[in-house]
């Protein structure tokens, strides 16, 4: 169970329009040793639905959909699938598939894109 205060801080940062909120979420959330904090943060970054926040969870190795914990990765994918406006996600996924240097990240992006097409 995620700490209540930490969850509130992540929610507050999600609601923030300030760009630096994404940096804080990436620095303290996606790098947290706690799986639940990483999961909650990844979902929060997806909910923001802006280029920089989505890039954190899609193109970074070991974060978001590329997280080593299957629970974190699946939860992030689920959040991506439930987005109403998927245009920005699809754009980033295409760029990742075409241009990313890491094959695993590319493969994951391809899988998520397939799921988006099916949903």
């Amino acid at each position: 169970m995620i700490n209540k205060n930490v969850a509130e801080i992540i929610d507050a940062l999600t609601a923030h329009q300030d760009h630096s909120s994404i940096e804080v979420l990436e620095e303290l959330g996606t790098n947290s040793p706690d799986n639940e904090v990483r999961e909650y943060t990844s979902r929060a970054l997806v909910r923001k639905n802006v280029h920089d926040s989505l890039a954190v969870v899609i193109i970074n190795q070991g974060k978001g959909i590329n997280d080593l914990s299957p629970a974190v990765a699946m939860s992030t994918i689920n959040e991506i699938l439930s987005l109403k406006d998927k245009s920005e996600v699809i754009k980033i996924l295409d760029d990742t598939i075409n241009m990313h240097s890491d094959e695993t990240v590319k493969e994951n992006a391809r899988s998520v894109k397939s799921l988006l097409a099916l949903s």
Partner: protein
Amino acid sequence: MAKIQKIELNLGQKIANPFKTTRKSTTNPFKYNDFEGNTLDVAAFADVFSGASDKNFSKLKMITSSVMGSMTKLRNSITEPIVNFVNRVKEGISSTWNNTIHNEGLKNITEKLQTTGDKIGDILNYDIGKGLSDSLSGLGKTISDKMNITGIGEDLSTKWAALIGKIHGRKISSDMTVAELKDLWIKENELISNSVKEAA
């Protein structure tokens, strides 16, 4: 001569052996166990403590024996470890609390109380709390300026502001700046890691 005859007469008599015991045979095997004719003196049944001059002594003895009896009874009545007992009581309280919270009628009351509490918290937080914090920060600054000791004054005002924030339970929201939220998160992480260390 008469005297000698007297001695002879005495020696001729059979002298009873004082060490010889005679075993009496009897048909009643309980003869020596019944109290017929062997009743004890009344004094033997009298209060065993009657010999003691102080009456409190007997009272004390009675209390002591009573307490000892209670302790023995208590010891015998404990049939489970004390840890299990405490856990059982804790679970009981927890379930009662959950029942109370999930009860529909009480749920409304708690929600209303929470709303009222939030409102009061907001008022205190943004008006009184902030006012106090500001004025005390100002006071700290004035003192530090007057006394030309910046370190102590600033430290006091910072600590006081933190204390006020803690007392009024400032609600974490997007109204706070990103820097404030980041600091809070770092402090929260420190608290969590400390509690984990303590638990370990």
